[in-house]
């Protein structure tokens, strides 16, 4: 008995059926085979040699996986038009939030555990890169699965668009409320510093009220800080008067932030910022070293984060105002 030789058609039908669900396979495979045979037969009747006819018919049918996808209505895309916008908005939102938080957290953790500067930069860069890649991958995977598992049923992932979804006009940060907010904030900060000096923020039963900031900062360092705060107030007034942020005012804002943040960091690194009696008074002496490091590092990161955000924000507003 001769084994039937495996023809190109056999191989083609096998290849196409690999991706077809079991329950459709027998039916589809028989229909596909009959259709190929019909087309080959038609070509042979017109005088074409059988092998050439078979080859030509298969070429016309194209990639078997693609053909099977067309037969079974399977999408040939990662994220289709139905979910594309939701996918893209979510990915952008996560990219805007998560890497920054991860970078901040990693840098803080590494600094607290006493890592070298180069080591910190290295791990922040690698964590941020992998967070970006992970967000892209996992978000897309979820949408890939949703696209294929819902069988075009509406599962409420995409809400119907209404005019209420339109974005609000962007804050330009130049209204009267912004001016009042900046001035009130500066006044509270100045008041808090004065209160800290003359009354004190820290209370312990043994020592009574004492100040949090080092008394040795008076008068020169604190005087300098008040001068910068006056400049910030003047800047806020001038932005309000002009009605918009521009590159000039944003640059001035950047320098003021750099001055405050730089001064604070330098004082922290010299351990001159916080009242030395504060740590002695509130912390048991055996863990004082660790707590001092944690408080100092946390304070430094907070100062840098606020200064960076405020500077970037003013440049963003300046860029928006130019349009």
């Amino acid at each position, binding site marked *: 008995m001769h084994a039937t030789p495996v023809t190109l058609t056999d191989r083609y039908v096998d290849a196409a059926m690999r991706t077809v669900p079991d329950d459709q396979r027998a039916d589809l495979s028989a229909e596909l085979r*009959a259709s190929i045979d*019909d087309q080959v037969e*038609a070509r042979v009747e017109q005088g074409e040699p059988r092998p050439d006819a078979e080859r030509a018919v298969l070429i016309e*049918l194209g990639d078997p996986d693609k*053909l099977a996808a067309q037969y079974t*209505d399977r999408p040939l895309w990662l994220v289709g038009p139905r979910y594309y916008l939701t996918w893209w908005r979510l990915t952008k939102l996560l990219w805007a939030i998560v890497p920054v938080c991860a970078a901040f957290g990693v840098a803080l953790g590494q600094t607290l555990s006493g890592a070298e500067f180069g080591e910190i930069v290295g791990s922040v860069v690698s964590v941020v890169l992998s967070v970006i890649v992970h967000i892209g991958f996992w978000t897309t995977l979820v949408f890939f699965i949703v696209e294929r598992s819902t069988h075009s049923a509406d599962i409420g992932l995409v809400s119907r668009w209404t005019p209420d979804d339109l974005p609000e006009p962007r804050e330009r940060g130049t209204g009267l409320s912004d001016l009042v907010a900046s001035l009130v904030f500066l006044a509270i900060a100045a008041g808090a510093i004065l209160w800290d000096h003359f009354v004190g923020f820290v209370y312990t039963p043994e020592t009574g009220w004492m100040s949090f900031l080092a008394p040795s900062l008076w008068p020169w360092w604190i005087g300098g800080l008040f001068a910068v705060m006056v400049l910030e107030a003047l800047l806020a007034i001038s932005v309000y008067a002009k009605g918009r942020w521009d590159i000039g005012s944003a640059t001035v804002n950047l320098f003021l932030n750099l001055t405050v943040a730089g001064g604070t960091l330098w004082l922290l690194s010299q351990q001159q910022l916080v009242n030395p009696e504060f740590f002695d008074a509130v912390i048991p002496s055996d863990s004082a070293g660790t707590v001092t490091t944690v408080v100092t590092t946390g304070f430094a990161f907070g100062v840098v984060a606020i200064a960076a955000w405020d500077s970037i924000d003013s440049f963003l507003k300046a860029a928006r105002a130019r349009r």
Partner: protein
Amino acid sequence: MSESEVLETHLQELRRGTVVLACLRLLEQPGYGYGLLEQLGERGFATDTNTLYPLLRRLEKQGYLTSEWNTDEARPRKFYRTSAAGSRLAAALIDDFHAIAAAIDALPEEH
């Protein structure tokens, strides 16, 4: 994309729905894939196998066609036939096609 390819794309878009209509009408008499393909070609609804076969399966799934395997001949073939719902769909499509034709006739003509 060249001008003839653009023209080809527009013509395809214009003709897309008419193949469905032709299938539903032709399959009032039972027919199988390849035979239907030839009939469509002769009647001026040229289409290719990669379009026709998935279309037939989709119409069957939607209940506009019924199918039956015919194993009397040497080569077993799947015969499709328009269902009652398919006939109603065809009637609705033809009405709409006439309405579109009338609307096109009423368009301002080129000068």
